[in-house]
């Protein structure tokens, strides 16, 4: 019998009806380590009852991957003087997942100051993870110099424009978007005309039943514009995805887990592996939030995502590093 650990936050969108409505009322927060548990059918969820022995591989027609975010390698202030150490713990958590993820999505702010040695350190630490493939999108901390040239050369070879790209895994279509380039004064994240035109074309001929996963750094929904937590032109991007039955948007940037369901789209943000940030409006600014040292791991985390072919949506599980 699969047991959900008390530090896990589980969102399963495979059930319609009451569970879904119940979920819509629940906005989950992990900023202070307090978790709100989904009501209705989670433990009965198909994807969990299918999770077999630890270390098992996903069966054919199943897909398991993990999202990490905001490793901020190079940050060394009080909120976390050892971001390499907490990233290492995240890798151990990935390796302990009951179904081995096939790959890792890193939703940006890999480095803290765009320094080569910071990127190198993250790559080195991630080499210890069992999934060998890592797909990256940049955060604003990754493109601080030379218009992101260094990031692009490391992770964006073969990609167009500022590094947007798409790929397919087990019938799921993944789209990496870049919304941290050429930010304008007073503005939010931005995708830009060229990227939007590419996105429209990229999904045009896909079957409506194709599950879509979008990953980008800054949230693609309006979490808290006052703090820059949103993307100006995301509505246009989402308009190209209306026809799809299942769209999952995975973001980072805000250093806390948050989720919203809007029609066919599930938006989800991941915790950071480096330091937490305050809940919207609960502090003067969205800077690094200090917590007692013994609580730090409980406010950092990874996100495990499972998809079973034929199911309507992906199961997204956040777990802390504690």
């Amino acid at each position, binding site marked *: 019998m699969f047991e959900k650990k008390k530090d896990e936050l589980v969102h399963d969108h495979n059930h319609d009806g009451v569970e879904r409505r119940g979920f819509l009322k629940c906005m989950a927060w992990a900023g202070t380590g307090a978790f709100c548990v989904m009501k209705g059918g989670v433990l009965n969820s198909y994807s969990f009852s299918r999770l077999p022995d630890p270390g098992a591989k996903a069966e054919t027609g199943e897909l398991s991957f993990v999202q990490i975010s905001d490793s901020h390698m190079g940050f060394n202030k009080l909120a976390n003087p050892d971001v390499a150490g907490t990233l290492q713990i995240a890798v151990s958590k990935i390796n302990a997942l009951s179904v081995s993820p096939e790959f890792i999505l890193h939703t940006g702010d890999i480095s*803290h100051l765009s320094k080569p040695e910071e990127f190198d350190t993250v790559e080195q630490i991630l080499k210890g993870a069992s999934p060998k493939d890592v797909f990256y999108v940049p955060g604003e901390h990754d493109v601080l110099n030379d218009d992101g040239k260094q990031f692009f050369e490391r992770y964006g070879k073969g990609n167009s424009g500022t590094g947007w790209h798409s790929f397919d895994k087990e019938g799921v279509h993944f789209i990496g978007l870049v919304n941290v380039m050429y930010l304008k004064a*007073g503005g939010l994240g931005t995708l830009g005309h060229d990227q939007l035109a590419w996105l429209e074309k990229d999904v045009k001929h896909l079957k409506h039943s194709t599950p879509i996963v979008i990953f980008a750094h800054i949230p693609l929904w309006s979490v808290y514009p006052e703090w820059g937590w949103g993307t100006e032109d995301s509505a246009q991007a989402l308009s190209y995805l209306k026809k799809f039955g299942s769209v999952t948007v995975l973001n980072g940037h805000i250093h806390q887990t948050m989720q919203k369901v809007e029609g066919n789209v599930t938006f989800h943000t991941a915790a950071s592996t480096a330091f937490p940030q305050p809940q919207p409006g609960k502090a003067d600014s969205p*800077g690094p939030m200090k917590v007692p040292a013994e609580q730090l791991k409980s406010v950092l985390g990874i996100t495990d995502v499972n998809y079973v072919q034929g199911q309507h949506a992906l199961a997204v599980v956040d777990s802390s590093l504690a």
Partner: protein
Amino acid sequence: MRRSVSFAVLAAALAIGSLALGLSGNHSALMAQEKASSAEVKIDNFCFSPATLTVSAGTTVTWTNHDDIPHTVVSTDDPRAFKSKVLDTDEKFSFTFSKSGTFAYFCSIHPKMTGKIVVQ
């Protein structure tokens, strides 16, 4: 001999001290003049403060980052009037405003942070 030398030194020190006090009026005027040609903007809590700073032409403005997260100071003009490198905690950026005008700027990492230098 030694005693008289040390006495002389002490007397000289006292004399210089009182001279300095006497000159302090002039000295602070000099200092005020120096202050007028330099000004400061603090970066703290994701804010530039003061958000609008008015200075006279020829003033050197220095931004200091007191946040525990990096910020930048980037002119919004095209072409940019000034652009700092990334400022980590306690790092500074200075720019001398020789022309009059209004110079809007922002943090390119956190674009909601905006400020203005008005040069008269």
